[in-house]
């Protein structure tokens, strides 16, 4: 068995929130091992002073000293997990600054998380998996071209997507809403194979990602079963042809959102949000339904409207929809309402997640929601940049999986 990935924990509060066990469990599930970098008191005092962030909480001082130990190579680690209490301003500042400091001064992958007593190992699992993957599979993630014939499947919470790739090109795709996980997967695979004119037996390697990755992966005998953070990063830079240098990937999904800061196609820091459905693709789906348009028509409709005309002051999917209904009832146009819905989602992702990573251009938007041009426009306005939506952006996870799966083709 491969030795566990050594994950250094920098934290304040998890033991007292009753969730340290959840962190340890999530790490263990992906063959990771949490440890605490050893520092002496004199080093804590020196490093805390040198870092210059004058916080009061001793455990945060300790976290700062431990971060310096890691960056300066006095303690060895494969990855870093920063965790502090949700709603603590002092800790949020430390968390962000340490994440940035480690990201800029070392090659260590970092994930930061603000927990509550409700945080479970399930919530942390995808993040831990991404962390250990980046640490352990740098060689795999370095792959830039797809070879042979591979199949990638993304079993998402809202939709299931498949692509067939051959010699670095997408030759078949399949897409449908996720109903029964396995059945939806089989159907999109059949569609993608048919479009590609390829028999299942000709496929040389298969990769799965998304919520249903384990279930589907096991069923179809996948060579690679991988969480969506690393897979989507690879897919995004591949499709946008930005495999080298920095990039930022934003994926507003059906159930959660991902914001990933990428360097040379490998995620450095990332956040996953998903506490509130008001910041998800689901909200836009509900808006489209209420406006009596297909989700594909929502984007063009929004582009004709002006978000500022509709009061939207709720982050909740239920109350948010209520606001839209009220707006329509008081005479707002459908265009303005569509635009307001897009703006609301973009704003929430911007406020809640993009603050946690460093936005570096190009900013790539991927996933099904990237096809809603009103949403892309709203995000571009908030970030003051032109957003890049690569071709096949809705298939990002499937493409990333097919690309990485080609690393598993056995040479004859």
């Amino acid at each position, binding site marked *: 068995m491969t030795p566990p990935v050594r994950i250094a924990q920098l934290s*304040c*509060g*998890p*033991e*007292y*929130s*009753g*969730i*340290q*066990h959840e962190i*340890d469990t999530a790490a263990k599930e992906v063959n990771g091992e949490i440890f605490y970098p050893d520092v002496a*008191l004199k080093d*804590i*005092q020196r490093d805390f002073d040198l870092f210059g962030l004058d*916080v*009061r*909480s*001793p*455990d*945060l*001082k*300790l976290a700062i000293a431990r971060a310096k130990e890691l960056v300066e190579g006095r303690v060895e680690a494969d990855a870093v997990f920063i965790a*502090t*209490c*949700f*709603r*603590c301003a*002092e*800790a949020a500042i430390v968390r962000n600054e340490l994440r940035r400091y480690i990201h800029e001064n070392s090659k260590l992958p970092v994930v930061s998380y603000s*927990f*509550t*007593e*409700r945080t479970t190992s399930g919530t942390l699992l995808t993040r831990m998996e991404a962390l250990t993957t980046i640490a352990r599979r740098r060689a795999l993630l370095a792959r830039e071209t797809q070879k042979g014939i591979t199949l990638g499947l993304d079993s998402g919470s809202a939709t299931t997507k498949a692509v067939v790739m051959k010699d670095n090109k997408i030759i078949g795709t399949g897409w449908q809403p996720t109903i029964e996980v396995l059945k939806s997967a089989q159907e999109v695979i059949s569609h993608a194979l048919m479009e590609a004119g390829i028999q299942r037996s000709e496929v040389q390697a298969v990769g799965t990602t998304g919520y249903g990755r384990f279930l589907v992966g096991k069923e179809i005998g996948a060579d690679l079963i991988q969480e969506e953070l690393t897979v989507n990063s690879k897919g995004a830079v591949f499709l946008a042809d930005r495999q080298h240098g920095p990039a930022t990937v934003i994926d507003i999904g059906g159930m959660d959102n991902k914001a990933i800061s990428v360097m040379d196609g490998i995620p450095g820091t990332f956040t996953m949000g998903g506490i509130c459905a008001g910041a998800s693709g689901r909200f836009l789906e509900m808006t489209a339904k209420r406006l009596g348009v297909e989700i594909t028509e929502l984007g063009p409709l929004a582009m004709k409207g002006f978000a500022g005309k509709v009061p939207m002051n709720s982050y909740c999917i239920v109350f948010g929809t209520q606001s839209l209904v009220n707006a329509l009832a008081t005479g707002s146009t459908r265009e303005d309402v569509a635009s307001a819905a897009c703006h609301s989602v973009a704003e929430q992702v911007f406020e809640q997640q993009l603050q946690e990573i460093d936005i570096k251009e190009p900013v790539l938007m991927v996933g099904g929601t990237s096809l809603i041009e009103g949403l892309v426009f709203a995000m571009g306005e908030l970030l003051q940049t032109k957003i890049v939506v690569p071709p096949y952006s809705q298939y990002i996870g499937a493409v990333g999986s097919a690309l990485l799966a080609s690393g598993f083709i056995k040479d004859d």
Partner: protein
Amino acid sequence: MAKVFIYPSTSLILSDMVARYGHTPLSSAVAIREKIQTAGFESPPLQMTPEEPKKGLKWAAVEVPSGVRGRMALYGPMIENCEAAIIIDNADFAFGCMGCARTNELIKFLVRQKDIPRLDLNYPQNEEEGVKFVAAIKRFLNGLGGAK
């Protein structure tokens, strides 16, 4: 014997002084010991489960971070039970149970709200201050009466 709340509650010096002069120190260790010696659901390392931050709601509202509320579930009962308190004000490097500045502010405030004998002082920084420190604590503890 009086139950004396000590701050920092992890302090070796205060714990020793209180016991040395015949009273009972209320320390984090005793609270943690109670947790790890009680059967329940597994939640290492401290056997504090997500229920603890909920118990902490008695001392801090729901918008207060879970780490503060969880710590208050440890310290709240100690503060309620104490009959006297010694507080070291410049304990800037007390970690773990005392690792959160916001919790520490709340602990000190709640202790100061109580109508009990209290001694506030700083760590000694030289021998002469050491004499004053020990003398003040000895006087304070003797003044409580009922020492063992």
